């Protein structure tokens, strides 16, 4: 859902459009650009490789873990799900509505084969972390010299 936000004097951000340039840009888009405009459909992620595993870290604030689906086909990892809209309590009215709800999906190619039975995932404070252990053939091995 994309809702145009109104500037109201009671509560409003002070510096998210601090510079004149940013104000100009914002006025071009007539207020439709919000700080997290591209945020939800393709959530940001980090990929960290360690010796024996790779970790995927993805920001999913306000997403229930039941609403996330993780799948792995060959070396393609897909994380998809949805953030439910919370809606407004009766009689309330929006002043700003920047947090997006709806579906998201990301697919990334992993840098190595994965030991599928060892994959684990957890959601903490709105951050999803997936641990993908490397398949034996992808683990570094020290070769002794005869």
């Amino acid at each position: 859902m994309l809702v145009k936000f109104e500037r109201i004097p009671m509560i409003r951000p002070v510096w998210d459009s601090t510079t004149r340039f940013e104000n100009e840009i914002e006025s071009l888009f007539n207020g439709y650009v919000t700080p997290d405009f591209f945020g939800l459909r393709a959530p940001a992620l980090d990929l960290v490789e360690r010796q024996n595993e790779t970790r995927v870290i993805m920001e999913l604030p306000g997403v229930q873990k039941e609403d996330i689906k993780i799948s792995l086909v060959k070396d393609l990892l897909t994380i998809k799900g949805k953030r439910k809209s919370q809606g407004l309590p009766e009689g309330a009215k929006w002043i700003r509505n920047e947090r997006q709800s709806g579906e998201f999906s990301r697919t990334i190619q992993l840098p190595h084969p994965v030991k599928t039975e060892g994959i684990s995932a957890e959601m903490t404070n709105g951050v999803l972390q997936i641990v993908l252990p490397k398949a034996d053939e992808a683990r570094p091995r020290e070769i002794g010299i005869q």
Partner: protein
Amino acid sequence: MNNGEVVVRREHDTQPSIAEREFRVPAADVYETSEAYILMLDLPGATRDAISLTLEMGEMRVKADVSSLHNQEGTLLLSEIAGSGFFRVFSIGDGIDTGNVDARYEQGVLTVKLFKSENVKPREIHIN
């Protein structure tokens, strides 16, 4: 409710410092009910202790440190999660009871309830 009142921007003392520029602006929802303003901010990766919420001089400042998320051992192959945290300032009007604020952090979302002062709440007057 606001009577067209305009809060004067004081940009000279609300500009973030260079260090604060490394912080991202979190997306926010704000809605108004008859008794309060409710703010919801996406602050993924923080903890209750890593969030500071201050109300001062007509401003509410929200700052969250998520640097621990980035300080993971290993090689970063893809890095899209920017900055070391979140920072945002909201102007608060006079009609808020600053002594009565409720804040909770769940699933990466901070919810702040700013109750209205008694004198700005809608009141029904009975006619005798």
